[in-house]
């Protein structure tokens, strides 16, 4: 160690890693700081990749994340960490280098789940997670495929469908659920979006799945559905959610699997021995932590806002003494833009048993809806009506009775109904660990 202390190492050089590192500096940490990233790029922002970058409105390299603090850090980019030795406090990087650490912040994020079925080796199959993904897909779209098939109608699949329609491309969207975003928002809201999609010319195929892809001369040409139906498509976007590479952590005796790395409330990584490692923290997509909103059940939140908040929180705890660790609390939220709509959600819809439109109307396409569970408000959703959302987010955070905020402007007769979630929902961590409902 050449007499110099190794300091703090941040593994993962994307949004959570960068904001965590900045927070360490802002919090007064003055020692050595190293950022390790498996991608060769400086930290960049992912949300535009499935929106403006695909649409060709933003060059991929314009997604670099703004730097909020001078980091004075060592960068080890293009070097995934492949092993962790907690006893000796050393990380092993892909090039064989040993990277010692005093404290570790793990923010390795998630990666796109690849096409798991037959035909996986064909050209013309894309995922959307990295800058390279977006660049490759963008140039493939620019060569005007005759039809784009999108597998999975989650957020990424729906946004990609919207971009492709904006580009004037024929789009088929296949999902095993009855509507798009069904697992996230339920089928009632999903049906509203489905209507909008169909009006935009998307060939939406719900309640079915792609069983296999096949091609000619190594290029994808067809998708095969149950019952022998075939869709001709020369470009396939696989949007089946995310998975985590945490094998290197499990080998180090931490509680980790494809669903993430389990942490305690203070964002410290849990060891299989049952206690948190006092010097290893995690934040962002990879972290599975006991969220007070779900009664302390561990789960990960794959949204942008959580990556920022949790990284900052973990950094603050890393700077604090062991006796002053603060539990992390966070109201999850996300936004999406698709089909001319601005969609925002605050809270967690998991296991919601009631849904009510509280401002505007689904028919008008502009509305605010709230989700309830056992009489409490657990989430609020806006379709082109985001300005009111903060008031409802406050109500969600406060655990207000369902429905909250009576006597609002543009308030219809409030009628609660079932939100349309299929059966008992899996908890967020298990859902993330398994493929997006029975595809392939």
């Amino acid at each position, binding site marked *: 160690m050449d007499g110099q202390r190794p300091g703090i190492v941040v593994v993962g050089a994307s949004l959570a890693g960068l904001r965590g590192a900045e927070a360490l500096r802002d919090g007064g940490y003055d020692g050595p700081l190293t950022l390790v990233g498996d991608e060769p790029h400086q930290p960049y922002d992912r949300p535009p990749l499935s929106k403006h970058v695909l649409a060709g409105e933003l060059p991929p390299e314009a997604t670099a994340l703004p730097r909020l603090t001078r980091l004075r850090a060592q960068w080890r980019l293009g070097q995934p960490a492949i092993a962790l030795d907690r006893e000796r406090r050393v990380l092993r990087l892909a090039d064989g280098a040993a990277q010692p650490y005093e404290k570790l912040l793990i923010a390795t994020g998630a990666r796109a789940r690849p096409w798991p079925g037959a035909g996986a080796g064909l050209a013309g199959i894309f995922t959307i997670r990295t800058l390279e993904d977006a660049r490759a897909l963008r140039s493939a779209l620019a060569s005007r495929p005759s039809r784009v098939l999108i597998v999975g109608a989650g957020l990424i699949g729906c946004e990609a469908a919207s971009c492709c329609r904006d580009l004037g491309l024929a789009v088929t969207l296949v999902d095993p659920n009855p509507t798009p975003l069904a697992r996230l928002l339920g089928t009632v809201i999903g049906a509203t979006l489905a209507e909008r999609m169909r009006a935009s010319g998307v060939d939406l195929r719900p309640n079915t799945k792609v069983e296999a892809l096949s091609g000619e001369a190594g290029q994808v040409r067809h998708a095969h559905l149950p019952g022998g139906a075939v869709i001709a498509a020369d470009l396939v976007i696989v949007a089946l959610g995310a998975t985590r590479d945490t094998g290197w952590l499990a080998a180090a005796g931490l509680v980790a699997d494809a669903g993430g790395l389990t942490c305690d409330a203070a964002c410290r990584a849990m060891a299989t021995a049952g206690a948190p490692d006092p010097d290893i923290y995690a934040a962002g997509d990879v972290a599975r932590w006991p969220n007070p909103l779900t009664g302390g059940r561990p789960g990960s939140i794959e949204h942008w806002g959580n990556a920022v908040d949790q990284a900052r929180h973990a950094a603050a705890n890393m700077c604090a003494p062991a006796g002053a660790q603060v539990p992390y609390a966070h109201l999850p939220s996300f936004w999406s833009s698709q089909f001319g709509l601005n969609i925002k959600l605050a809270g967690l819809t998991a296991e919601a048993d009631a849904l009510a439109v509280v*401002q*505007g109307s689904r028919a*008008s396409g*502009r509305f*605010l809806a709230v989700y309830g569970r056992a009489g409490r408000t657990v989430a609020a959703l806006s379709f082109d*009506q985001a*300005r*009111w959302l*903060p*008031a409802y987010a*406050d109500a969600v955070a406060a655990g207000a009775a369902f429905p909250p*905020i*009576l*006597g*609002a*402007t*543009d*308030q219809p007769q409030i009628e609660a109904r079932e939100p349309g979630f299929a059966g008992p929902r899996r908890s967020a961590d298990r859902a993330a660990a398994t493929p997006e409902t029975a595809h392939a």
Partner: protein
Amino acid sequence: MPDETLFAQVLDPRNRANPYPLYARLRATPVSRQADGSYVVSTHAALRSLIFDPRLSSEDLPPSRRPRTGNPLKDWILNPIRNRVVNAHRPLIFRDPPDHDTLRGFVMKEFTIARVRDSHAKVAALVDALIDKCRGRDTVCLVDDLSYPLPVAVICELLGVPEADEAQFHAWAIRLATALEPDARHDEAGRREITATFDAISGYMRRLIRAKRRHPADDMLSGLAARGDRKNPAMGDIDLISTAILLLVAGHETTVNLITNGMLTLLRHPEELEKLKADPERAPRVIEETLRYEPPVHFRTRKALGAIEIAGTTIPAGSTVVLLFAAGNRDPARFAHPDRFDPDRPDNQHFGFGGGLHYCVGAPLARIEAEIALVALCRRLVAPRLLDDPPPYRPGASLRGPENLAIAIAGIA
């Protein structure tokens, strides 16, 4: 027991020159009930929360009423219909979603960044011409000489309203602006006057819109008046008239105060005036700080549609709620040394343009006008000195600003 007359004291013209000590006393109770049953919101935190509260309605303008004429046809049929039509098509600052959003959408489509940017050169030329006119004088009357004529000319050009008609709508604009003042809107005579003025200016706008439809030009009014089709629906005619009136009136009544308050503040802080003179790049910071420190609009009123619990107080449904933005701007819990004019403050989240759903549509234009005007005034007025401090104020407590601002000068550079 909190003082329930504080807001009445704010409305009292004798306190117009310096309402800030009253605001400080109001902030001791963030949401304080007044003797008339209204609730005044004065802390930054409470304002922030309420501007995003969907239970606050902007449809709080008392219904318009036309006086009895003795003609039964008018009194029993025509005027009641006209009252109803006017009430249903108020300008969008007095409307709630979804109508508000639709109307605002139409306006935003015309009030484009390109249009605002294009007005830059025009504003600069106007400012120079107006200052040139003061050559040979030893006193500048800022409101008459620049603060008023500048925004009027700019909004007329943008909208496509002939500037020559200014003499006609000047008095209308001043009277309509009183719709924001609690005193005028709650007094029977005041309401009648607002209604009569609205009728008069509506007639003017109706004729102008008809002309725009016959001979469309590259201006906002022509754009707003364009006939819609199934894919691109247009604003209804009555909404169009009320929107055009709003843009015309709001387009200058507020900017007058921003420019005058800005110059007044700089004259009271000569070191800041010198800094701006030496470094025009400071203008945006000076304007933002003016918007916090001496904003053009001090408060707006709303109506609570449902009961709202906030800061330990429950505002009952149906109450009038006064959002006292100018008090939030001086909240020591939000701003360090809030009563100091400090363009260099790092974090200036003021309510100078309101906030939430009704955030000022014209903010970018107002900023351009005020920046260009203040920089030119600092650079070109030689040895400017305030003659009356405090200056005489216009009557409004909400739209608060000097009636005029006499500045002694040693020449024009």
